[in-house]
């Protein structure tokens, strides 16, 4: 990622305008042609610096109001397979392995979203059944205090 890439990311990180050529203004500002901005963004996406480029909805507005973090205790030798299995589901937006501590034995974390609490619970039960895992907890979110996106400066 060079300085120009950084400037492009800085310019688009809060969103592009709904104009016919949304990259034109940025391109002019940086002394590039619009297609050059687009090519760079594509490359940044290929390089995984951009995780996703696209539209992000406010999930509450589209009815996704039941959000839970599910923590699982998975035997070490099965962790990878289980994580890959969980990751295949659209309802699972995040899946991480995390360090355990003497007072916290859960090593796999999934974020699960749904339109109803019950739907989320049933979905998680189904995951548990299919992986034959019994040691897990569902932590529904009550309130969001902070959510900041990763930014370049």
């Amino acid at each position, binding site marked *: *990622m060079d300085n120009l890439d950084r400037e492009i*990311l800085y310019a*688009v*990180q*809060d*969103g*592009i305008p*709904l*104009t*016919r*050529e*949304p*990259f*034109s203004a940025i391109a002019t500002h940086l002394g590039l042609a619009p*297609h050059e901005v687009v090519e760079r*963004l594509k490359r940044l996406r290929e390089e*995984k*610096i*951009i*995780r*996703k*480029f*696209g*539209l*992000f*909805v*406010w*999930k509450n*507005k*589209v009815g*996704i109001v039941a959000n839970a*973090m599910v923590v699982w205790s998975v035997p070490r030798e099965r962790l990878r397979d289980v*994580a*890959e299995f*969980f*990751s295949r589901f*659209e309802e699972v*937006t*995040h*899946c*991480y*392995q*995390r*360090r355990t*501590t003497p007072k*916290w034995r859960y090593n796999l974390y999934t974020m699960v979203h749904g339109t109803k609490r019950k739907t989320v619970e049933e979905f998680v039960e189904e995951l548990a059944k299919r992986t034959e895992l019994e040691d897990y*907890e569902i*932590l529904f*979110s*009550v*309130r*969001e*205090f*902070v*959510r*900041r*996106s*990763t*930014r*370049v400066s």
Partner: protein
Amino acid sequence: MDRRLLEKAQNSFPLTVRPWRSIGNELSISEKEVIARLNRLSKQGFIRKIGPSLNAVQTDLRASTLVAMKLHEDRIQGVAKMIGEHRGVTHCYQREHEYNLWFTIAARNQPELEKTLEAIKHAAGVTKDELLNLPSIRTFKIDVRFRLS
């Protein structure tokens, strides 16, 4: 059509000079209609943004962790406010659990991360028993998209 449009722009956004035209072509509507619909959906509050989500590790935030705290119910709001004032805190949620406040910190390096965590710990006045520090070992998936139909 609104739902199809949102889904299309969410799941497979065309990075082209005229993306709305490309989207319109795929949905058999005009570029003008795509823009008009997205403008309306934006005014109606459905759209958070149309743009990139960036990979923290690649942008130079290399250290991160998830922290949980056990707080008395009536302290949650105050502590959450204090936590949110730290620039490195990226998420902070109240959850239904004995550990009821959960937050993530991202920093350029481990010492910077520890410094933020120490400051928060101190300000919140929690003991070792009331806190979990759970750095990630491996990311298997991050893909936030929702079924809209």
